[in-house]
């Protein structure tokens, strides 16, 4: 245990683009056979902010270049997984649903065992994979992913949920590696001030990046897929 002390004292967050082998306290960066495992990215955020739509758009944007799989965490059984299946963004064997017993944040933060099984099963059955997206069940502003489960996390909010959410903060908004503010096309209709949201997010997050998206437009997910590409480059640049 004493050997880990220095490790535990690492700065909590790494600057964007300088990802180390794996987060402190995180899972090992290699598969049992010693090769580098897939990058695991968590997507969290409140109900209805567009997490599943973002996952679907990311799969469409990245699936030709990357080997991808998705783990969904649903409150009610497999709905999100079934949405992804219906929309055929990935073959069914690349989508796995974790049931969370009415506690979606528990499954991604306090007891990640079911999600780890799902992630490892995907690597084993359809692998080798480049990227695994882990989508949380719709939850509140306090839900974040354990470092034992994911290497980076995206928090998705939307302009229709109120333009004061970035100001209110909470662990998701302040500490996620990427904050996505979705449904910008709706801003004029719901009276949300995007400038203010950007300012508030900057105040809460410092240098951590923020992406504004509108998934109704062609290529609307590009800011997020670009960010994932950069993370992946950093992930694979360091020897396993």
């Amino acid at each position, binding site marked *: 245990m004493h050997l880990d002390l220095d490790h535990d004292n690492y700065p909590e967050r790494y600057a964007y683009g300088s990802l180390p082998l794996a987060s402190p306290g995180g899972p090992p960066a290699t598969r049992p056979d010693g090769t580098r495992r897939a990058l695991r990215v968590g997507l969290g955020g409140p109900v209805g902010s567009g997490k599943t739509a973002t996952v679907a758009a990311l799969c469409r944007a990245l699936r030709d270049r990357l080997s991808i799989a998705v783990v969904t965490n649903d*409150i*009610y*059984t*497999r*709905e999100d997984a079934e949405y992804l299946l219906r929309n055929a963004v990935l073959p069914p064997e690349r989508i796995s649903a*974790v*049931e*969370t*017993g*009415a*506690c979606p944040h*528990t*499954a991604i933060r*306090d*007891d*990640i*065992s*079911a999600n*780890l*099984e799902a992630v490892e099963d995907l690597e084993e059955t359809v692998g080798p994979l480049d990227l695994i997206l882990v989508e949380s069940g719709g939850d509140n502003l306090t839900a974040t992913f354990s470092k034992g489960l994911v290497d980076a996390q995206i928090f998705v909010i939307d302009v229709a949920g109120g333009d004061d959410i970035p100001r209110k903060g909470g662990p998701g908004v302040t500490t996620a590696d990427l904050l996505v503010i979705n449904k910008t096309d709706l801003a004029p209709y719901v009276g949300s001030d995007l400038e203010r949201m950007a300012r508030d997010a900057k105040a809460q997050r410092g240098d951590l990046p923020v992406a504004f998206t509108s998934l109704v437009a062609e290529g609307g997910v590009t800011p997020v897929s670009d960010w994932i590409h950069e993370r992946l480059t950093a992930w694979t640049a360091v020897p396993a």
Partner: protein
Amino acid sequence: MPRWRPRPGHEQAAPRASRAALLVLADGRFPAGGHAHSGGAEAAVKAGRITGPGTLEAFCRGRLHTSGLVAAALAAAATAGLDPLLLDEAADARTPSPSLRTTARKLGRQLTRAARAAWPSPELDALAAARPQGAHQPVVLGLTVRAAGLTPLDAAHAAAYESVTGPATAAVRLLSLDPFAVTAVLARLTPDLDEVAAQAAEAAHRALDEGMDVLPAASAPLLDIYAEQHATWPVRLFAS
């Protein structure tokens, strides 16, 4: 495969043996996946058979003296040093519901992950290698207790306790029951818990000499029926 020879668990206590290890293991926050499972309570609630603290207590008492007793005995037997693979087979024969067999193995695999982090042991490694998809959870629990240097009776207590806390916690979430009333239900069950644990540990010790057949096989037809009904639901809060 290693050869297993029956040895009383307490003689083999590891140097770091600590009674408090039992508290760590039996804590509802121990990250082994239990939070997503209702132990049949979700189906019993839907059937209108658990409606409040009184019916919850009757449900828990029935579960404790049937599948709880069997789990406690299997766990105690694994701690006492009976061959875990034969115990795994005995667990299969005592679990006619395929949904419950799947659940038991899933939870066994999740517990293995937590157990190997908390109390690393060659016996847990060997079982994980022999049953990569998971051994029955009580068998893993018994080996975990053994690795932590505790006794078969401790294993029986932990398994018996789990058999009632799962449904109790689930009922709180499903019916919004008063958590104090539910805690009082658990408190009223403690004499039964002691009795079941003692019975299970005694059977485990007898099994060392007389073989696996003396381990209890108490079954509850409705629990088997609930498990298969629940598995067919398209919408549910709990995984089982």
